[in-house]
């Protein structure tokens, strides 16, 4: 059984008024303008006498365990933060005279998370050990409640019960073989694309992520191998090529555009090219707001491998050195992924992906 255990829990409530002073008042201020010699006053904000503190409620529980004389250490933590009455710049339609107001949002947003870590000495001998450590994080964000959401300024953005990071998007239905344009599902059958047609929800927040490290040490030789993993949905190459207008900006195109639609009957994943300001350009804009640009961006990556040899004390004394170390170090050596695009980590075909580097070195200290 466990030789050491520790459990901790905490719960607290904190307020927050991190906005400037006088934000609730319908203030006016003078401007440099005058009209016929009269100094003018202009309204600067709407009146909101109900402004109050934002409330954050935090709850956390953690447990630490040790087994087999400390050879296995395990810790787990769970937290739940709920923030309510958020102080925000609430977006308003301009018909109110302003586009925002400082306001308490009568919504509850919940952040929950689990964090696990495990460290184990699989072998622990006098001149040899093998240690494995792993960690895993799962974080979830949820809009718990938002009274009056459907009539609020955020109706087109949020869904109760879903994360606030979701994006509402159109359902992509392929390139029309006749017109050569991207097509989307017209959910409300209105004949044109509008906010009501954004029926799918996409979230690019990672589902879980973590790392796995193994260290093997024999006398002066040490080998360390670190894997990184992440489960997520990301933006694929279609996002990048559609959000930059080809030919307009100085950007290259992936070779897949060679298979674009050219004439009636062509079946392609890429629509026709255009020089017009409408038609295909608009559909390209719509594609960026559709599910076509989202795909799995999970990966397992061999992030770090390092092998080193440190000279022993007798040898060091003879050459009058304090320490001498030979090493070979590699980064981003190998990736397993189904990602559509250059690299699942930075998700852009126009930015440099994480570099694969191999370094060989000697470290000598006197």
């Amino acid at each position: 059984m466990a030789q050491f255990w520790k459990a901790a829990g905490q719960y607290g409530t904190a307020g927050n008024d991190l906005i400037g002073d006088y934000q609730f008042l319908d203030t006016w201020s003078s401007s440099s303008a005058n009209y016929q010699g009269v100094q003018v006053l202009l309204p600067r904000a709407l009146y909101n006498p109900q402004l109050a503190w934002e409330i954050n409620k935090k709850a956390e529980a953690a447990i630490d365990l040790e087994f087999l004389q400390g050879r296995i250490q395990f810790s787990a933590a769970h937290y739940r933060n709920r923030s309510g009455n958020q102080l925000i710049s609430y977006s308003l339609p301009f018909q109110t005279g302003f586009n925002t107001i400082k306001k308490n949002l009568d919504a509850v947003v919940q952040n929950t998370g689990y964090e696990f870590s495990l460290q184990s000495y699989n072998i622990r001998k006098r001149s040899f050990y093998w240690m494995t450590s792993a960690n895993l994080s799962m974080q979830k964000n949820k809009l718990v409640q938002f009274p009056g959401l459907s009539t609020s300024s955020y109706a087109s953005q949020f869904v109760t019960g879903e994360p606030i990071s979701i994006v509402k998007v159109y359902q992509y239905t392929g390139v029309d073989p006749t017109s050569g344009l991207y097509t989307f599902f017209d959910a409300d059958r209105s004949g044109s694309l509008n906010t009501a047609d954004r029926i799918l929800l996409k979230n690019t927040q990672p589902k879980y992520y973590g790392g796995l490290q193994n260290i093997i040490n024999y006398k002066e030789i040490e080998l360390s191998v670190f894997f990184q993993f992440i489960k997520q949905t990301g933006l694929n190459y279609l996002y990048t090529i559609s959000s930059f207008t080809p030919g307009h900006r100085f950007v290259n195109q992936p070779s897949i555009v060679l298979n674009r639609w050219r004439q009636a009957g062509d079946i392609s994943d890429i629509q026709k090219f255009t020089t017009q300001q409408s038609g295909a350009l608009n559909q390209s804009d719509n594609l960026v707001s559709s599910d076509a640009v989202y795909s799995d961006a999970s990966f397992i990556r061999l992030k770090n491998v390092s092998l080193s040899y440190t000279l022993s004390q007798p040898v060091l004394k003879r050459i009058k050195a304090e320490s001498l170390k030979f090493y070979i170090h590699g980064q981003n050596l190998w990736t397993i992924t189904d990602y559509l695009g250059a690299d699942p980590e930075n998700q852009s075909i126009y930015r440099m992906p994480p570099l694969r580097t191999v370094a060989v070195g000697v470290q000598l200290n006197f």
Partner: protein
Amino acid sequence: MKSFSAFIKYTKLVSIGYLVFLSSCRKFVEVNPAPNLIQTSAVFESEKTVLSAVSGVYSQLRSNTSVFTNSGLSIYGGLAADELYATTPNATSDPFYQNQLSSSNSTITNFFYNAAYRILYQVNVTIKGVEESKVLTDSAKRQYSGEMKTIRAIFYFYLVNLFGDIPLVVTTDYTVNATMARAPVEKVYAQIFTDLSDAESVLKINYPSSGKARINKWTAASLLARVYLYRNEWVKAEEKASAVIQSGMYSLLSSQNIGNVFLKNSSETIWELASSNDAAPPGEGVNFIPSTGTVRPTYAVTDQLLNSFESSDARKTKWLQKNTVSGVDYWYPFKYKQRSVSGGTSPNENEIVLRLAEMYLIRAEAKAMQDNLAGAKDDLNMIRNRAGLNNTAAITKSDVLNAIMKERQSELMTEWGHRWLDLKRTNRANAVLQPIKGSNWNDTDILWPLPLSELLYNPSLVQNPGY
């Protein structure tokens, strides 16, 4: 006796303690006034700050050189109709000229829709503040509220004509206004008539400040004449136009002086907008007049407009100019003649919102519609003769009406979107613009789109058809 004085002492102590408690409590609850800022309630409790608030509204009408009340309508209305074209491909003006506007068009969003509602808030909060003010005299209240209601009316007039049904915001409570749906055109016009009738009845004949840069009774009456015309109420349109023409305060210039119509305080102007610090020429001058005589103007007059002038028309020589570049003539509007003024000097022109010539044309049309063709021709000929033209040859009712429309095209060219609105109100937009714009033209182009941001933040709004 001893016990009595002790009692007094005791009660004194208690009441002193009570006072200390009260004052400290108030100190805690009351918020010190914000530095450099004043609240709405305070603005309307001093005559000086009320005048500053009212002047603030006027100043915003010319807050920049593209806002729709400072050449925005003249430019983009002219492009959308058949008056202007951009001389080089231009991402801002092409969507208007091609009638290919999108709901995310930033010109519509910033210079038309949002600008209008920002100022409408200012107007609404000022109307309410003036009404509830305890320091203003009744006569000052009437004056300010008449001015503000006239401005509210002209904004709703343009909004309803450009966008169709629109949210009719007349109060300041954002909780009510944020979710307000579009009001039908009839309801918007009802509000416009109420505001203008109120304004006309309370405003004085004399202008409240120097020149004509603030609103008087005849400004409200002129707008009423226009709005009655747009609603086909011919009798009332004629009545209001007559009231302004017969007021004796305005007169048409001679044909020799037609180049001076747009000067500050010319005898033809009814309402002018001054620039901030009286330092900048009107937006039309800034945007229409090219920087030198050898460059292409940004916007040039179309052949349709150029050819609509009769050959001896004084307006063609005085209100139009041309630059010849690489052998091509580019005619541009030259009603306003100052592109810039040197620092420290005032321009000799203001932005003119309303002027007398329109009143003659309104009355001519209203008379013709009531089959008073002789009277209609009299009014029409006033405008023709002033432009150095002979009397009209029109005889039948439809000839007279066509002659009036043609006269409006020349007289009111590239001015506050008159042509665009005239084509729409007379149901001729399709017939006139389809041949010019070709396949770019759709029936639904007569209404501009509501800004996408408004639709996103107000779920009660529905977009115009075609967008």
